[in-house]
């Protein structure tokens, strides 16, 4: 007790709802008619994605793959090559913005934009901590599932607009894949929503908090929750076009899939969108099944680990850590497994994941109704 009291005194900014007050004040900041505060708040996730994509996403992927493959990875730019991604981005910015002459210019230009917006909009409803959520919608989960579908439009626009046969193949494959995998993914998330009794992302997180830490997470709250958890994880890999489901951009088959013709900053935007969606699905799976911003550490008698590691900033720490963990698993899989074939991918979706998703849906419903 005394230790926790000390920690509360010495680290007051980690505790309480100070951030709430700050963000409320910031949200109210309006210069004449222009809601500057809201714009700044909306920009925070964007900055976060950009930073994360720079530091962890691309650099981490390169380093992790390098260590898995007995290499060193980037080592030249900065200590341990930490500035490599920055150098790459600078290089991409300097590149000439090429639009192929025979391309549909409008679709070609707007494709990466839609793609980026699609993956970025879902960040609005992710609760990053008890005190911070961009838009506290009561249908947050539904919105997150729905808005990701927007990416399909961007991919199709990019693939069709490029006027390249490989791009078209990539786009068609991608659309078929994403549209199919949304079904098991949505049903699996519905299991989590049923356990929470709400679609509100913040409420889903709140329902998983408690003094026993991880024991309150939905993954450990019912004996069948691992099934939707696994189904959603697999489906999310397919939705973000990550290996072993990266057939839309299978470099050995389709050169680079729907972004074959892209270069320079447009290519960087597509890249950013991909890493953005990677984090988004990782955050969603952590929120629905692993407690989101809740600390996984339990209170052990007087050693109140849970209480010490809870709070707005701790919450952000936990959800980002959980997200990064899943991103690490995604990378791990990518650098280990070969790629599935198109028909095997569809087979897996429609004949394995979807039926099992329905089974887990029914079992979760029974569990929720009959088990108190």
């Amino acid at each position: 007790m005394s230790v926790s009291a000390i920690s509360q005194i010495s680290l007051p900014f980690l505790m309480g709802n100070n951030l709430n007050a700050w963000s409320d004040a910031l949200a109210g900041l309006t210069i004449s008619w222009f809601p500057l505060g809201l714009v700044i708040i909306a920009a925070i996730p964007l900055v976060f994605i950009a930073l994360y994509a720079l530091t962890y996403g691309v650099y981490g992927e390169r380093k992790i793959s390098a260590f898995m493959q007995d290499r060193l990875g980037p080592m030249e730019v900065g200590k341990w090559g930490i500035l490599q991604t920055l150098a790459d981005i600078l290089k991409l910015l300097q590149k000439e913005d090429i639009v192929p002459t025979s391309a549909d210019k409008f679709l070609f230009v707007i494709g990466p934009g839609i793609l980026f917006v699609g993956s970025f909009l879902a960040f609005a409803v992710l609760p990053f901590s008890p005190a911070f959520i961009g838009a506290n919608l009561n249908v947050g989960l539904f919105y997150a599932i729905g808005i990701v579908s927007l990416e399909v439009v961007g991919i199709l626009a990019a693939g069709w607009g490029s006027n390249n046969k490989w791009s078209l193949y990539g786009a068609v494959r991608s659309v078929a894949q994403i549209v199919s995998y949304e079904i098991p993914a949505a049903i699996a998330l519905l299991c989590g929503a049923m356990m929470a009794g709400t679609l509100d992302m913040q409420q889903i997180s709140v329902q998983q908090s408690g003094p026993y830490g991880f024991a309150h997470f939905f993954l450990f709250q019912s004996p069948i929750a691992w099934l939707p958890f696994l189904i959603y994880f697999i489906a999310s890999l397919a939705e973000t076009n990550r290996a072993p489901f990266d057939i839309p951009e299978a470099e050995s088959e389709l050169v680079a899939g729907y972004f074959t013709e892209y270069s320079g900053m447009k290519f960087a935007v597509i890249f950013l969108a991909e890493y953005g969606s990677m984090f988004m699905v990782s955050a969603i799976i952590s929120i629905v099944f692993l407690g989101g911003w809740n600390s996984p550490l339990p209170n052990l008698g007087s050693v109140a680990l849970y209480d010490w590691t809870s709070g707005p900033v701790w919450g952000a720490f936990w959800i980002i850590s959980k997200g990064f963990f899943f991103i690490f698993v995604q990378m791990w899989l990518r650098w280990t497994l070969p790629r599935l074939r198109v028909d095997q991918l569809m087979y897996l979706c429609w004949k394995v994941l979807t039926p099992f998703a329905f089974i887990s849906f029914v079992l979760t419903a029974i569990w929720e109704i009959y088990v108190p």
Partner: protein
Amino acid sequence: MQELGMAEQGSIRVSRKDDNVVVIEKDLATEEMLLSMGPQHPSTHGVLKLECMTDGEVVTSAEPYLGYLHRCFEKHCEVVDYPGIVPYTDRMDYLAGMNNEWAYCIAVEKLLDIEIPRRVEFIRVMVSELNRIASHLVAIGTYGIDLGAFTPFLFCFRDREHILNLLEWASGARMLYNYIWIGGVAFDIPADFNKRVKEFVDYFRPKVVELYKLLTENEIFVKRTKGIGIMPADVAINYAWSGPMLRGSGVQWDLRRNDPYSVYPELDFNIPVPDGKFSDIGDCLSRHLVRALEMEESLNIIEQCISKMPGSDGFNPRSSVPKRVRPKAGEVYARAENPRGELGFYIQSDGKSTRPLRCKARSSCFVNLSAMKDLSKGQLIPDLVAIIGSIDIVLGEVDR
């Protein structure tokens, strides 16, 4: 691949039927699209161009176009003297330079009818088998990349690097060796070479197992390759396939056994042929498997070479290298088992010149690739990539 023909409503085509994966296209006749795959495509292993007619994802026909890497090897041979051709042969199958040189030297030696020192023969066997392992490592690694597994590729290259270092130590070059000369070798192997090779063999044996676990036994890898691109043994023989391709179809044919040359009759090794338990005989997985198993056989051969090799006392690697190569008038065909199959050299001499009148290389890759049109019919695009990868072509040898 089976055709069910015309049904009542229209044509139904079943592309494949293996463990529940069936592709049925029913009454959806759309316009076919011409898809030019290569010469700058990541999975054509160089500058092969395939003109595919595609019906959705199904390739209805694929026509290989060659010649993007044509360097007039055979014409060059007619203006270069016999020893001068050796470095050119390196550049054919640049992943297995030693084996190429050897095949050429066997042909010229047959024409000259000269006796080769025993130690030279063992050195040749050893460096060629090392090169065979290196070549198979590239084949297996790039096959992994074709199927989307990136990591095995780098594992393969890590191990290949050790072989290249050894060969560089012996010959001074990493890929284009010019080491095996007509009648001998350029240099004797360095003093500790055999010890280092032994170290490499001990290091590499567990790595083969690791590769096996990482790639060959991977469920997705097996699903992608099993039952794909099946080539029956009789058709393979009619196409004059050779090497791992033919052995993948279940024919136990290896020139090191069936037409023995050098000291291979003294060496004890198996010729791996798929038994049909793990893979369907003649499919892509069988061909991959043959390569994976052959690496271990090569390790056995290398070990035997180390123990049987005569000492270097009073040994001159160039003792039987002729000062001036001017064979009697006549012709010769000699062949050797290369990593990719039978490499044969047909050489014609007019008896007056120090240059061959005609030098024809029978390229294994070229012959193996000729079946591409048959193999690719009705396959999906990802399977087409898997089939090209399993043929393991080196365009340097295809085009020469």
